[in-house]
C-alpha cells in the first residue's frame, strides 16, 4: 500500500508541468556557467580567469571549489546528467499521462450540433443564400470542399459538418518523442562509441587510432594514407580544399580505396574518418619522394619520382638534373632572392642543378605554385607535381552507433514541428434553414490553432456564397 503511494507520488511528480518549466530554467541557467568557465581546459586557464573575476588571491581556492563541483567538465558531470535524465523522465511520463486524453479527443466522432450550440463557438457566421434548399445544399457542400474537407450530412436537420487534421494533435507528442530519441541516441553513442584521432603520414599504415589521452584504440582493420594534397585560393595561402587518398586493408588485402575531403568523410565498419587537419612530417625517412612531370621540348611528358639528392634525365635530350635541395614554402623577395616563408607545405619547391653538353650548367628553383619556374632555357619543362611522404593527414576518427537514433530524432522533430505549428485540427458545421425564396445559413467552426487565420478563410469562402 505504502509502495503504491510512493510510486504514484513519483509518477505525479514527473507528470507535473511545473517541473518541466523548472527544468528548462535550471538547465538553461547552469549551462551558462559552463560557457563562462572553460570546459576541459588546462587548470591554468581557468585559474587565470578566476584571477580576473575574483582577484589573484582567491583564484586558487575558487578553482578548487569549482572543479570539485564538476564545473570544469560540467556537461559530463553526474548532476548535469541527472538533470537530463529527469528531463527525459518528465517528458516521457508527462506525455504518457496525457496521451489517453488526447486520444479521446482525436477519436471522438464529429456530431451535428444542436441549433442552440451554434452560438457557443468562437468562429460563427450567418448569411442568406437566394434560391431553394437544393441550391443552398450544393453551395454549402462546395464551400466545405473548398476548405479542404469532406462533408457529412446530419440525419434529422439540414446540416453538414466536417473536420480535418485531427491527427495533428499528436504532433507535440512526436516532438517530445524526438527529444527523448535524441537524448537516448547521444547517450548510446557516448557509451558505446569512440572518438579519437589519427595522424597518418603519406605511405604509412595504422591499425589503431588514438584517444584524446593518447591511448591506442584498435580498429580491427588497417588504414593507409596513399596521398595527401592541399590546394589554395589563387596566390594566397588560404586553403581552398584538402584531400586524402585512403586505403582500407584487411588481411593484407586492400578492400577499399577512397579520397576524402573536408565535409566528405570515409565510412568503414562503423568507423568514420574525417579530414580534420594536416601537418608536416618531422622525422623524414628515405621513403619521401619528389614527383616531377618532365616534358622535353616538343615531346611527350613523363612522370618521374625520385628522392632529394638523386638525378634524372630529360628523355630524348642530353640534359640531366639533380635535385639538390627542398623548400616547403618558397617565395621570392623584392630582390628576387628565394626564401622559405613557412614550415608548412604552402609552396613546395626543389632546387635542381642541370648539366648539358650543349648548354653547360645551369640551376634554379622549381616551385609547385609558380608555373613560370617550370620552364628550362632549352624549351623543356619540369613541373613539380607533388612531394610525397612530407606531410601527414590529420584524421578525426569516430564510431557512433547512436548517431542514427539522433538523426531519426531530428527527422521526427522536423515533422512534428511542422505539424504542430503549421497544421491544426479544424471543424465546421453548416446549418441550412429554408425560407420562402432564400435559405438562412448558420456556420460554426472551431480550430485548436490560429483562429484568426481560419476565421478569415471561412469568411472569404462563405461571403462568396452569399453573393
Amino acid at each position: 500500500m505504502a509502495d503504491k503511494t510512493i510510486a504514484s507520488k513519483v509518477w505525479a511528480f514527473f507528470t507535473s508541468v511545473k517541473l518541466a518549466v523548472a527544468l528548462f530554467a535550471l538547465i538553461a541557467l547552469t549551462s551558462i556557467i559552463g560557457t563562462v568557465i572553460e570546459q576541459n581546459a588546462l587548470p591554468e586557464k581557468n585559474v587565470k580567469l578566476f584571477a580576473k573575476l575574483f582577484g589573484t588571491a582567491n583564484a586558487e581556492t575558487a578553482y578548487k571549489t569549482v572543479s570539485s563541483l564538476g564545473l570544469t567538465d560540467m556537461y559530463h558531470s553526474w548532476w548535469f546528467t541527472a538533470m537530463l535524465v529527469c528531463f527525459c523522465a518528465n517528458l516521457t511520463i508527462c506525455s504518457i499521462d496525457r496521451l489517453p486524453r488526447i486520444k479521446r479527443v482525436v477519436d471522438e466522432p464529429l456530431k451535428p450540433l444542436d441549433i442552440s450550440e451554434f452560438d457557443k463557438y468562437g468562429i460563427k457566421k450567418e448569411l442568406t443564400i437566394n434560391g431553394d434548399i437544393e441550391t443552398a445544399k450544393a453551395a454549402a457542400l462546395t464551400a466545405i470542399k473548398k476548405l479542404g474537407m469532406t462533408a457529412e450530412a446530419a440525419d434529422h436537420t439540414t446540416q453538414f459538418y466536417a473536420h480535418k487534421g485531427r491527427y495533428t494533435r499528436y504532433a507535440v507528442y512526436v516532438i517530445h518523442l524526438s527529444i527523448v530519441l535524441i537524448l537516448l541516441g547521444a547517450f548510446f553513442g557516448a557509451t558505446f562509441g569512440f572518438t579519437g584521432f589519427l595522424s597518418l603520414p603519406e605511405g604509412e599504415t595504422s591499425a589503431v587510432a588514438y584517444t584524446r589521452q593518447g591511448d591506442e584504440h584498435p580498429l580491427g582493420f588497417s588504414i593507409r594514407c596513399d596521398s595527401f594534397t592541399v590546394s589554395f585560393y589563387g596566390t594566397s595561402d588560404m586553403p581552398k580544399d584538402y584531400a586524402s587518398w585512403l586505403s582500407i586493408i584487411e588481411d593484407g588485402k586492400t578492400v577499399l580505396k577512397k579520397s576524402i575531403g573536408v565535409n566528405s568523410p570515409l565510412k568503414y565498419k562503423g568507423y568514420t574518418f574525417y579530414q580534420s587537419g594536416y601537418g608536416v612530417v618531422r622525422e623524414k625517412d628515405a621513403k619521401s619522394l619528389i614527383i616531377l612531370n618532365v616534358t622535353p621540348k616538343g615531346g611527350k611528358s613523363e612522370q618521374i619520382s625520385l628522392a632529394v639528392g638523386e638525378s634524372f634525365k630529360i628523355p630524348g635530350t642530353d640534359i640531366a638534373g639533380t635535385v639538390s635541395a627542398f623548400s616547403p614554402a618558397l617565395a621570392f623577395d623584392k630582390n628576387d632572392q628565394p626564401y622559405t616563408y613557412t614550415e608548412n607545405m604552402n609552396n613546395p619547391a626543389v632546387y635542381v642543378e642541370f648539366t648539358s653538353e650543349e648548354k653547360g650548367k645551369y640551376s634554379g628553383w622549381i616551385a609547385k605554385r609558380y608555373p613560370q619556374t617550370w620552364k628550362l632555357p632549352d624549351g623543356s619543362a619540369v613541373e613539380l607535381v607533388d612531394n610525397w611522404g612530407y606531410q601527414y593527414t590529420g584524421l578525426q576518427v569516430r564510431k557512433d552507433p547512436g548517431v542514427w537514433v539522433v538523426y531519426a530524432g531530428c527527422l521526427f522533430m522536423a515533422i512534428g514541428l511542422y505539424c504542430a505549428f503549421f497544421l491544426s485540427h479544424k471543424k465546421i458545421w453548416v446549418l441550412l434553414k429554408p425560407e420562402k425564396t432564400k435559405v438562412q445559413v448558420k456556420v460554426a467552426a472551431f480550430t485548436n490553432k490560429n483562429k484568426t487565420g481560419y476565421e478569415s478563410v471561412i469568411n472569404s469562402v462563405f461571403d462568396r456564397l452569399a453573393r
Partner: protein
Amino acid sequence: MGSPILFGIAEVGYFVAMMVYIGYFIFKGKAVGVAATVVAVAAFLSQTAALLFRWLESYGMGIGRAPLTNLYESLIFFVWCLMLGYLIIEFKYKNRTFGAFVTPLAGLALGFIDLTGISKEIEPLVPALQSNWLLAHVTMSFISYSAFGLAFATGMLYLVLSTEKRTEPSYIFWTVAGSVFFILLAAMGADFLKFKVIGTSPETIKSYLFRATFRGGGPAALLSFIASAAVIFSVWRYGHVLKRMLSSFGMTLDFLEDINYKVVAVGFPIFTLGGLIFGAIWADQAWGVYWSWDPKETWSLITWLVYAFYLHARYLRGWRGNKIAVLSSIGFITVIFTYLGVNMFLSGLHSYGES
C-alpha cells in the same frame, strides 16, 4: 554600381526611416507615415539589390557563394529579414506604429557593423565552411532571429501599454531594457559623430565601438555612466508619457499579443530545424561531432530553452500578457548574446593577451 554603394544607400535609408518612423510616432500625421514607409521600402530594395550584387561579385572573384558566411554578411542578412518581416506586418495589418521600434533594431545592427570595423571583404571560405548545410543553417538561423526580433519589439510595446505602476516588475523591466537599447544606440551615434563625421579617427584603432563613450576612458567614461543612469531613471520616471503617445494609435493589447505569439510560432520551428538541427548536421559532417558543448552551441540551446519555456508557459500554464511579453524580450536578449556576446564577451574573458 557596386554593392558597397547600394549598401551605403540602404544604411542611410534605414537611419532616415528610423527618424521618420519616430517622427511619425511623435507627431502622427498621415504624410509622415507614408514617407516613413516609402523610405523604408526604398532602403529595403536597395539592400536587396546590394545583396544580389555582392553575390554576383563573389562569382566575378572566382569564389562564387551566397553572401551569408561571415559576421558582416550575416548581420546584413539579419537586417534584411527583419525589415522584410516588418514590412509584411505593416502591409498586412495596416499599422505603422511599431516601425519606430523595429527600425532602431536595424540601426543598431548596422551601426554595430560600421563601428566595430568588421571586415566587409568578400573572403574565400576555408574548406570546413564550404557546405550547403552551413548555408541552410545560417539562412534559417537569421530568419528565426529576425522573427524573434519582431517578437521582442511587440513584447516591449505590449509592456509599455499594459503596465500602470512604476513599482510593477514588468514596468521596471521594460523601462530598463528599453533604456539600455536607447543608450547603446545613442552611444553608437556618439561614436559616429566623433570618428566618422568629425573624423578624428585614429588609424590605430580597429574598433570605434563605444570609444567616444564608455570605452573612452577618464571623464568621458564616467560621464557616460552617469548619463546612462540618468536616462534609465528618467525613462523609468516618465515612461507613462510614452504610453500615452502609444495609446493614441489604437493598437490593442490583443493585437500585440497575437503578433508576438505568431512570430514566435514561426521563429521557433525554423530556429529548431535550421539553428540547431542543421548546425549539428554540418558540425557532424565537417568535424565528426554533432554536438560539442562549445559556448556558441550552448547559448543556442539556452535560447531554444527560453522559447520552449515561453511556449509551455503560455500553452500549459496559461501565461498571458506581461509575463509572456517579458519572456519574449528575454528570449531576444539571449539571441543577441548568442550571436555577439559569445564572440565579444566570452572570448574576451578567455583571451589573456589584451585587456
